[in-house]
């Protein structure tokens, strides 16, 4: 055992010199961090594997070794381990790859990562392990259908486009009206009279030309809903009537398509996620629609413009979570927001075993298949 272990902490600039003169370069982080980018020529050895794998990667104990991690702590521990094993020239990069990147030094992505992963547009996503190149690739592959390019749809469309969702379908038969512009921010005053699908597509592609927008310029009905939602990974319900919400629900249950649901009334909003056969569906929550006088639409009752804005963004948030497979989606939970009180409340929702859409016996073939697949 030497008197003093030969471990140094070096700056990224000093590390660069050592790497250039032939030092072995070890990245001691986890695989998901590696996937978000690493130094050229580095070999990944996660912390727990350092002692077991280093001699295979660097057989020569006299060869200089540079180790880095995310911020410098794990690499320092690994460097001490190596010195104890007899490596004579071991350096840990102070500040890790975080400081390396902050200094504008070059780094690269593992081979085989999607092209989208190198797009600086998504830099703020790519640095987060929860998204990273892999998640950004999932977003690029995702196909999301918005029913309604109105109050709920406007902010959701903008943010999902910004997030890099690859395909966005929009169902709307309406044209832009001046009274929409108090809240429907995806449209513009110089587009009054234009089809909402065309107007939304214009705004989306001005923000992110990579997004493929599919314009379904038609009214959602009981007879076209199955065709409309076919091929989409998930649907965002921004409709305005009970009729369309029930049609959409039943079709979504038939095709086992998740629906991110929101509705608004004046100063309040409700939000939940319906994943067929995993949680309740819309009919489990509201088996029958209320009489019209109890549930006036926005055009009659009015709505504070920001309310659908907030709820539409919460829908987009849930959609991104579902696509990435992160967090706890609002399945079986109803979030209710009171804008005037400034309060959110959460209510528990359950599947109704007697639900005519998703209950036991209803559409048994689809439900049983899924139950078997998820068991």
């Amino acid at each position, binding site marked *: 055992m030497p008197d003093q272990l030969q471990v140094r902490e070096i700056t990224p600039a000093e590390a660069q010199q050592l790497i250039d003169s032939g030092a072995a370069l070890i990245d001691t982080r986890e695989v998901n961090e590696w996937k978000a980018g690493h130094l050229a020529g580095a070999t990944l050895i996660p912390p727990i594997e350092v002692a077991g794998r280093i001699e295979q990667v660097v057989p020569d104990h006299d060869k200089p070794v540079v180790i880095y991690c995310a911020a410098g702590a794990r690499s320092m521990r690994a460097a001490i381990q190596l010195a104890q094993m007899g490596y004579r020239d071991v350096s840990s990069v102070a500040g890790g790859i975080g400081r390396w990147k902050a200094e504008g030094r070059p780094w690269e992505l593992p081979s085989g990562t999607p092209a989208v992963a190198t797009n600086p547009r998504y830099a703020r996503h790519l640095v987060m392990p929860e998204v990273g190149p892999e998640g950004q690739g999932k977003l690029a592959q995702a196909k999301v259908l918005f029913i309604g390019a109105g109050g709920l749809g406007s902010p959701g469309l903008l943010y999902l486009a910004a997030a890099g969702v690859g395909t966005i379908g929009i169902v709307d038969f309406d044209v832009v009206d001046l009274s929409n512009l108090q809240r429907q921010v995806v449209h513009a005053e110089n587009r009054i009279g234009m089809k909402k699908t065309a107007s939304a597509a214009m705004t989306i592609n001005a923000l992110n030309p990579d997004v493929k927008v599919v314009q379904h310029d038609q009214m959602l009905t009981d007879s076209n809903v199955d065709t409309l939602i076919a091929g989409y990974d998930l649907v965002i319900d921004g409709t305005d009537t009970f009729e369309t919400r029930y049609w959409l629900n039943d079709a979504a249950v038939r095709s086992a398509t998740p629906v991110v649901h929101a509705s608004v009334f004046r100063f309040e909003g409700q939000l939940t996620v319906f994943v067929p056969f995993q949680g309740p569906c819309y009919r489990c929550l509201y088996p029958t629609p209320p009489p019209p006088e109890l549930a006036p639409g926005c055009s009659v009752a009015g709505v504070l413009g920001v309310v659908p804005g907030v709820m539409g963004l919460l829908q987009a948030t849930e959609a991104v979570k579902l696509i990435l497979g992160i967090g706890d989606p609002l399945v079986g939970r109803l979030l209710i927001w009171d804008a005037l009180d400034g309060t959110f409340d959460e209510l*528990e929702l359950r599947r109704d075993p007697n639900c005519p859409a998703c209950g036991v016996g209803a559409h048994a073939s689809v439900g049983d298949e899924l139950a078997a697949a998820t068991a």
Partner: protein
Amino acid sequence: MTAVRLPPVLRQHAGDAKQVEASGSTLGEVMTEIVTRHPGLREQLLASDGELHRFVNVYLNGLDVRYLNGLATPIGERDTVIVLPAMAGGS
């Protein structure tokens, strides 16, 4: 007294109150007192057979009373009741 929160669409039938209070040992007793005091709420909340309408959800401490004992569910003074009707607005 148990506090019952009303949704905006029903407040006009309760003198614009956001929340009404009533006493009773079951949800049914609390509801009966409320609709007696605010008759306009009766047809909004209760069907002709005295049961809750299917389009009105009532939550006791965050859980739908359909999964408890409905109107027969025992209730305490500190319980929170939320009445939630379906709403469809989205545009």
